[in-house]
């Protein structure tokens, strides 16, 4: 069956059908993104923290903006190419548009990745330390005296198998690349003794035997004692609770013994004292053993204060967001205060904030009791990242969808160039309209999320 009005205009609307269709769709898209932008306004007005400004990688965002604008030009040129019956112009412009879409998504992937790998730690006084965690991440280090299995769970204990270490691996031996995590002991190889003195392991067969024994004795749990000394490096998110003497994993397995350390190791790249009552008394300065860091912070603050007083004479700097961000949010550029100072003097390189740049940051140890909360920069960190990932994720899905549609046109409809060029032109125009919409959403997203 021939679909009517794909090329010629329908008399009553004055338009070919697909054009009405895509504009109606765009009207609904305006509502969809409008709702999310409206949420952005609410979240921003209601935020009880300093809204991040220039915290995302501006260069990558700027590059992606240029990529999208470039692709907006090429898609309209591809359409013009069909209209002007110039196949090369059509083909290459459409191909470049598709490649731009995938380039955009690739850059976005690296932006997301850098957020997933970056952590924020809120100290008890409100100071925020930003940085990267060593390879193993944050772990409670614990020496085990006994392991109590919980038979309400169907399977052998799950979470402890990722945390079991040979004893004596808590030492904090660091090489130059950070800490060297001890190998995880395969749980099947660890020998335990039951209360009756029988030797066993937690291999599935042994576990089933233990379980049937317990069932016969009408017991829900069973206490095992490790034959050789045993340690656990437990991820906080896999624990239901912990104390000085016990760890309880989410699956109900209880480890009794002694907490050796709940210190978090962090390679710090930003010290944000804006939310601390007094930047001079921030907990950060006790955590950084080298007093040079406080001195570097003071010098940088002085510098910004001088600049502020010159440009805004008579104004209160503490009421300027701009000043607070520049002066109280201290960016670290070296492993030691001296290295930081040197870097500061020579100037931070243009590409220093790119993912491929090599960095050396000071490593600090933060006591568990000093931490209010911590997380990587995902939606749970704050509402800014929640709306950031929601809108850019949805926008990214649109970029992917647009790229696939255009790829379809390129592969399956290009032959129409000879047989039915006006139909092809209309298809490219419809796809193009959608593509321009994706571009204009980004034109607002870029300043709102990256710059302002």
């Amino acid at each position, binding site marked *: 069956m021939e679909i009517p009005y794909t090329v010629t205009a329908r008399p009553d609307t*004055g338009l070919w059908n697909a054009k009405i269709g895509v504009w109606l769709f765009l009207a609904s898209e305006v509502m969809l993104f*409008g709702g999310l932008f409206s949420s952005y306004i609410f979240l921003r007005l209601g935020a009880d923290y300093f809204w991040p400004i220039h915290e995302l990688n501006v260069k990558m965002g700027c590059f992606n903006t240029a990529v999208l604008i470039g692709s907006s030009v090429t898609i309209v040129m591809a359409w013009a190419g069909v209209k002007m019956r110039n196949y090369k112009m059509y083909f290459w412009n459409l191909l470049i548009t598709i490649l731009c879409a995938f380039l955009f998504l690739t850059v976005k992937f690296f932006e997301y990745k850098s957020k997933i790998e970056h952590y924020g730690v809120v100290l008890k006084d409100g100071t925020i330390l930003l940085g990267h965690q060593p390879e193993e991440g944050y772990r409670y280090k614990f020496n085990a005296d006994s392991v109590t299995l919980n038979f309400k769970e169907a399977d052998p204990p799950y979470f402890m198998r990722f945390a079991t270490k040979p004893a004596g691996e808590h030492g904090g031996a660091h090489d130059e690349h950070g800490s060297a995590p001890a190998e995880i002991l395969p749980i099947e190889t660890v020998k335990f003794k039951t209360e009756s003195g029988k030797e066993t392991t937690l291999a599935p067969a042994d576990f089933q035997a233990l379980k049937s024994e317990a069932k016969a004795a009408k017991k829900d749990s069973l206490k095992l004692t490790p034959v050789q000394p045993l340690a656990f490096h437990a991820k906080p998110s896999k624990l239901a609770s912990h104390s000085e003497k016990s760890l309880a994993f989410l699956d109900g397995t209880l480890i009794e013994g002694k907490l050796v350390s709940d210190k978090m190791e962090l390679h710090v790249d930003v010290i944000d004292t804006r939310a601390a009552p007094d930047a001079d008394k921030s907990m950060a300065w006790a955590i950084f053993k080298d007093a040079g860091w406080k001195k570097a912070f003071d010098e940088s603050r002085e510098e910004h204060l001088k600049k502020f007083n010159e440009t805004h004479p008579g104004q209160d700097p503490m009421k300027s967001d701009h000043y607070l961000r520049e002066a109280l949010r201290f960016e670290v550029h070296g492993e030691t205060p001296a290295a930081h100072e040197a870097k500061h003097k020579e100037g931070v390189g243009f590409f220093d904030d790119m993912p491929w740049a090599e960095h050396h940051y000071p490593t600090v140890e933060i006591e568990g009791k000093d931490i209010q909360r911590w997380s990587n920069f995902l939606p749970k960190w704050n509402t800014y990242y929640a709306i950031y990932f929601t809108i850019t994720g949805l926008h990214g899905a649109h970029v992917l969808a647009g790229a696939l549609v255009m790829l379809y046109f390129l592969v399956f409809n290009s032959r129409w160039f000879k047989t039915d060029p006006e139909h092809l032109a209309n298809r490219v125009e419809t796809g193009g309209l959608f593509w321009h919409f994706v571009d204009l959403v980004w034109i607002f997203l870029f300043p709102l999320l990256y710059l302002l």
Partner: protein
Amino acid sequence: MANSPEEVAKHVKTYLKVGAALLFLTAVTVWLSYVDFGTHSRNMAIGLTVATFKTSLVVLIFMHMNHERPLIYKFMLFSMLLLGVMFTLFVFVHDDGLIMRGYQAVFGKH
């Protein structure tokens, strides 16, 4: 409508110029965001004005809204009205203290 090959050919240069203008304005937006205009609201107003100008270029030139059929303007007008409502909804929470609470939490009560 720009339908004949000759007319389309005339527009090609315009498309390239608009593309260049959009790239230039992107650079301007980035630069302006680093300038301290006194209050951050001013930065917001200036940045969003540039962004709005950029989107109008895209809509008018690339999406051909400078010469479209009336029916499409009607759709979009309706859509824009609802968008306007969504963007002004927050004024209704002002009495709820949402704005002041956020402000005080960040800057303290002074």
